[in-house]
C-alpha cells in the first residue's frame, strides 16, 4: 500500500436484493488530480459515492482514505476526515439562505454548542466570535463563486444552476481534501457549464483538492479529467486517460453515443 495515495477503492461491491449495483470496482486517485467516473444511467456511479461517504454500507471491499479504511463509518465522521460531496438531485437546505447553507458547511470547524450559542449577547462572546470568523471564510467562497446576489435569499426559490453552485460552495466550505461531485453540470446551460469548468479547475489549482467527478457531459469530462473510469451494470469496463478511454471499443459501444464523440473533436 503506497502512502502517497490519498484515496483508493478496492473491490467495492454492494447489492440491493438481487441487483449488484456495484460489482468489484477498484481504482485509486492521485492527490490533486481530477478523476471521473462515467457510465450509462443506472450504472452504479452514484451508489459508489454513497458508499464512499457512508450513506450505504458496501457488502464487500475497502475504501482507503489517508491510509485508513473508512468503510462502515458514519457519514458525519467521514465528513470530518475531509470528504465532501454534492448531490445529483440537489440536497440543499431549502428553507435556509445561501449564506446559512454555506455556514452549515463550516459546521465541523465551528465550536459553538447549545450553551454558548444560547447565551451570546456581546460581540466578544465565544459564539459571536465563532460566527464572525467563519463568516469570513464563507464570504470568500461566495465571492469565488459569484454568489453575492443570492447571499441572503432562501435557496429553495433560486434557479437550478445557482442551486448547483451553492451545493458546490457548501461542499467547499467544509474544506475537504477530497471532493465528490455528482453530475455538477446537469441542468446548466452551456455558458454556465463553461464557468463551472473554469471554477473546478480554479478550485483545484488554488486549494489543491482531489476531485472525484461523475458527469454525463462528455466534453466537460474529456476536458478536465486526469483519469477516467468507465463502468456499466456496476462493473468496471476500462480506466485510463481521456484519449485512451474514448478510443476503447467497448466504451464506444456501451456508452459514448455517436454524436458525443464527434462533439469532442470540435
Amino acid at each position, binding site marked *: 500500500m503506497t502512502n502517497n495515495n490519498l484515496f483508493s477503492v478496492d473491490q467495492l461491491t454492494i447489492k*440491493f436484493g438481487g441487483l449488484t449495483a456495484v460489482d468489484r470496482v477498484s481504482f485509486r486517485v492521485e492527490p490533486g488530480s481530477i478523476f471521473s467516473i462515467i457510465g450509462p444511467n443506472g450504472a452504479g456511479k*452514484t451508489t459508489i459515492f454513497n458508499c464512499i461517504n457512508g*450513506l450505504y454500507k458496501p457488502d464487500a471491499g475497502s475504501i482507503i482514505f489517508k491510509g485508513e479504511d473508512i468503510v462502515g463509518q458514519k457519514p458525519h465522521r467521514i465528513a470530518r476526515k475531509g470528504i465532501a460531496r454534492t448531490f445529483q438531485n440537489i440536497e440543499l437546505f431549502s428553507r435556509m439562505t445561501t449564506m446559512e447553507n454555506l455556514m452549515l458547511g463550516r459546521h465541523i470547524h465551528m465550536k459553538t454548542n447549545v450553551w454558548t450559542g444560547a447565551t451570546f449577547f456581546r460581540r466578544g462572546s465565544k459564539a459571536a466570535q465563532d460566527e464572525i470568523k467563519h463568516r469570513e471564510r464563507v464570504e470568500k467562497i461566495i465571492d469565488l463563486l459569484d454568489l453575492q446576489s443570492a447571499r441572503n435569499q432562501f435557496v429553495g426559490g433560486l434557479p437550478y444552476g445557482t442551486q448547483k453552485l451553492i451545493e458546490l460552495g457548501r461542499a467547499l466550505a467544509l474544506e475537504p481534501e477530497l471532493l465528490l461531485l455528482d453530475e455538477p453540470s446537469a441542468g446548466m446551460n452551456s455558458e454556465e457549464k463553461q464557468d463551472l469548468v473554469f471554477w473546478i479547475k480554479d478550485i483545484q489549482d488554488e486549494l489543491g483538492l482531489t476531485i472525484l467527478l461523475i458527469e454525463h457531459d462528455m466534453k466537460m469530462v474529456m476536458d478536465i479529467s486526469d483519469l477516467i473510469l468507465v463502468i456499466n451494470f456496476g462493473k468496471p469496463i476500462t480506466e485510463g486517460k481521456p484519449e485512451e478511454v474514448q478510443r476503447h471499443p467497448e466504451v464506444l459501444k456501451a456508452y459514448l453515443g455517436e454524436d458525443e464523440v464527434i462533439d469532442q473533436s470540435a
Partner: protein
Amino acid sequence: MFLQLVVSGLSFGSLYALIALAMVIIYKTSEVPNFGQGEMAMISTFVAFTLLVTHGYSFAVSFIGAFIFAAALGVFLEFVFLRRAKDPNILSLILITLGFQMVLYGLASWKWGADQKDFPFPVSDFDVINIGSAVISYLNIATLLITLFLMFMLFLFFRYTKVGIAMKATQQNAMAARINGIRTNRIMSITWALSSMIGAVAGMLLAPIATLDPNLMLEPLLKGFAAAVLGGMTTLVGAALGGYILGVIENLFGGYISLEFKSIVAFLIIVLVLCFKPSGLFAKHYVRKV
C-alpha cells in the same frame, strides 16, 4: 394463576388486535397512522349506546345503526379532510388525524358528558366457565370468538372479493392500481369505512367491561399502536398477532412484576421494538434510497 393471566390476556389482546387491524388497514393505504381511530370507535360506541338506552331499540338495530354510523364517519373524515391536504406530508397527515381526535373527543364529551355509563351487552361479563384453573367470562369468550370470526371474514374479503382485491392492489402500488382502472379514491373511502367499523366493534366489546365515557379509547389507542408496531405496521396478520402478544405480555407483567406499571408495558414494547427491530416482528426491512 399463569393460565388465568394468559386467558384474560388473550381476551384483551383480541381487542388490541382489532384496533391494530383497523389502524394497519388505513396505514397501508393512506400511509398515515390514524390517531383518530380510538375516538372514531368511541363515538360509534356512544351512538350504539344512545340507540340502545336512550331510544330503546333492540341490540340488533342499535349495533347495526352504530356500524352504519361508523362507516359514514370514516368516509366523511377521509373525504372532507384528509383528501384536502395540500401538501400531504407525514406531519400534516398526522396532524389532521389528531385534529379529528380532538373534534370527536370534544363532541362526545359535549353530548354525553364525562360521567361513566354502563353499556348493556347481550352477553354477560359475570357468568363464567372454568377451564382448568382459569376462569373465563362469557363476554371474554364472545370477544375472542367475534374477533376470530372478523379476522376470518377479513381474510376472505381480501382474498376473494373484488373490492378486497382492489384494496390490496391499491395498498401495494396506488399508481399501478389507478392505471389498471381501479378507482383508488373510492377504495380510500371504503378503506376508511371498513377500518372505522372494525374499530367500532372493538369499542363495543370494550365498553361493557370498562364503562363508557369519552376517555374509553385513549389508552386502547396506544395499545393498538403498540400491537401494530409489534407486527410491523404493514401486515394484517402481524397486527393481529401483535395484539395477542401485547395482551398476554401486559397481563403477565401485571400479574408477576407490577400492577402499578402495567400500563407502561405498551410504551416499553413500542420503544424496544423500534430500537431493536424497527420493521416489527413479522415484516420485512427495506432500505431507503438516496
